[in-house]
């Protein structure tokens, strides 16, 4: 779907924008409140939500570890499944999983027909904050949250999808929330998928630089767009008994 199709979908007054939720496997099984909040925020923004219960994972763990065949079988299924649904857009509360869908095209380098399908699907697949801001043109979703928060730029959202200003604009419009910028907001948290368990000591050393600035900043919560980074940051904060909590952007935006 190109830019003008987006506009047609938005301007068409007869029907609400239909969004297929790709909730991601981590959110589905380990952090359902992110999924629930995503539904709430999107509904508040006037979208109609479809959720296909046959969905599982985007295939990223296998792709990132070098298991292309396994990643391909999951990717093919993902494409088939979301092609079937009659939605305008696919939205996910994850920059990383959305970026994976955008990588599908490269994965099918030897297969032109699948590559075209992957490309078409990626064009209408969005990470939550960029969908709200770029597609719907909404920077204020009527949220209210009392506290000082900071934004952690999850790497794939930031560097693969170019998501930088969208979440910040959304957070600035949350009533009673103060956004504090950390010096290393855009540096990696050390998660990196299987990297976090292949090289746990390096992963934790990278993480500790993040934790250090978070702890000295006096924020109440760290907000990010990816559950995986939040598991990494939150897991360490929990281990050291920190008072700082982690929250997904969707959860912040659903707060009222």
């Amino acid at each position: 779907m190109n830019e003008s199709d987006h506009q047609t979908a938005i301007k068409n007054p007869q029907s609400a924008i239909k969004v297929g939720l790709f909730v991601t496997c981590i959110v589905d099984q380990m952090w359902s409140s992110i999924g629930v909040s995503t539904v709430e925020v999107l509904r508040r923004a006037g979208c109609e939500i479809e959720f296909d219960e046959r969905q599982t994972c985007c295939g990223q763990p296998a792709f990132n570890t070098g298991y292309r065949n396994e990643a391909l079988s999951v990717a093919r299924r993902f494409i088939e499944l979301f092609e079937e649904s009659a939605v305008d857009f696919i939205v996910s509360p994850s920059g990383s999983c959305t970026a994976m869908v955008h990588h599908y095209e490269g994965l099918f380098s030897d297969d032109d027909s699948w590559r075209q399908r992957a490309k078409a699907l990626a064009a209408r697949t969005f990470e939550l904050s960029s969908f709200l801001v770029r597609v719907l043109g909404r920077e204020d979703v009527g949220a209210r949250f009392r506290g000082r928060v900071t934004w952690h730029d999850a790497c794939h959202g930031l560097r693969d999808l170019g998501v930088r200003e969208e979440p910040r604009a959304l957070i600035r419009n949350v009533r009673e929330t103060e956004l504090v910028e950390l010096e290393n907001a855009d540096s990696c948290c050390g998660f990196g998928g299987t990297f976090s368990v292949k090289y746990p000591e390096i992963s934790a050393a990278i993480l500790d630089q993040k934790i250090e600035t978070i702890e000295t900043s006096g924020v109440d919560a760290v907000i990010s767009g990816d559950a995986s980074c939040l598991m990494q940051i939150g897991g360490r904060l929990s281990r050291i008994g920190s008072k700082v909590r982690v929250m997904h952007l969707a959860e912040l935006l659903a707060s009222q």
Partner: protein
Amino acid sequence: MNHLTAETFDSNARAALNDSQLRGALRHATSLFGKRRLAAARSLNNWEDLRSEARRIKDETLLHLDKYLTEFTANAENAGARIHWARDAAEANNLVKKIARQNAARLVVKSKSMTTEEIHLNAALEAEGIEALETDLGEYIVQLAGETPSHIIAPAIHKTRHQIAKLFTEKLAIPPTDDIATLTITARRVLRQKFAAAEIGVSGVNFGVAETGTILILENEGNIRLTTSLPRTHIAVMGIEKVIPRFADLEMFLKLLPRSGTGQHLTSYQSLITGTKRSPDQEGPEELHIILLDNGRSRMLAHPTTRQSLACIRCGACLNACPVYQQIGGHAYGSVYPGPIGAVITPQLIGLSKAAKLPYASSLCGACREVCPVKIDIPELLLHLRAEITRNAEGGENKPDIAPRRAEQLAFKIWAAIMTRPRWYEFSASLARLLQRLVVRGNRIGKVGGFIGAMAPPLAAWTGARDLRPVEKKSFRQQWRESGRSPTVREGA
């Protein structure tokens, strides 16, 4: 720290993480380089255009590398240089040794060159009884310490001022001091005598211009100027990918390389060398030998994805930007080229099986790609190499860590079977819910060791420093289903 290999990357990295002096030095230096690079890049309003244009020129060159190398060779020879081709490190070293013998050389002065590190030239010369002395201050420090460079452009980045002072006191017999001026003057005094005595100077090459046969070498200390002009014979070792088509292309690369490397607008010295001196009264060496080194590069050229590895101009920006390098430094990689670009180049130079751990030494955060002056997609290359490694493992070629790979292979086969079948997916989540009762305490999973840790290594690895969220009692899809498509947030769900 000197004889580490890429095969022991895990333990190398752990040792580095326990070295607080190393980590302090790295943190200081990488963040300083990073800030300087950013400021220098911002001093130009067309930085992004320059990057794209530089990459375009590199791609064009690599696509017609044979043509540009032929042109370079002809023009350099016309100007009086002698061109030699070396298929691998041994051939390159033999060429240098042969030239040294012809010159009856006892002493070779060297300027900083990663390419000569790559072929281990110093060791080859020393085996012949020829002294090879490094004249770049950082390289000199590293050589005195009996170490190898830990950074592409800052060889002694891993050392603190105090450590260097101690080294100089021990090795150069000077009174204890950590005054930087005294230390550099001491090094200068030693090096000047060697420059005067050396029969041969060996350098690397930053760019070789096909159009004119000129080589360009960048530096800040003046030691390259001396290395390439004082001795009677100059040998330049040049990777075949260093050729660029036109003299005018240098303008762009001279804007990109110093800014990306040290954050300078330009290095203090730029030595442009075209052939040898033309008449006896001119200055400069009588002989210039340029050794064109392949050593695995033509293999990288063959595949469109790996080809971009050869666009690298060795600025070191990706090292400074890499969260992994920032924590463990260069030696832990156990390879000549460390950091993100090292993790890409090393397996292609020395073979995947000897460096299979390096492509995994990255969180794929993409910071390297963001700073690369020639826009090399390093994460893409790392992923490409990871795929090669798993493919090789299936063929049984990848021997060093075959056992964990077999387990991982099986795990991903099962994973793919689960992720393509929603019922299996829900069933395995239920199974996890059941099994995790063994380790969940107060709605989180703390450190898991002992028998359970041994049975589930990833769980033990994760929980070493971090708590883990358990699988929830009710998944999102269950809540969606049970609420009639209207789930609501409940605390502690």
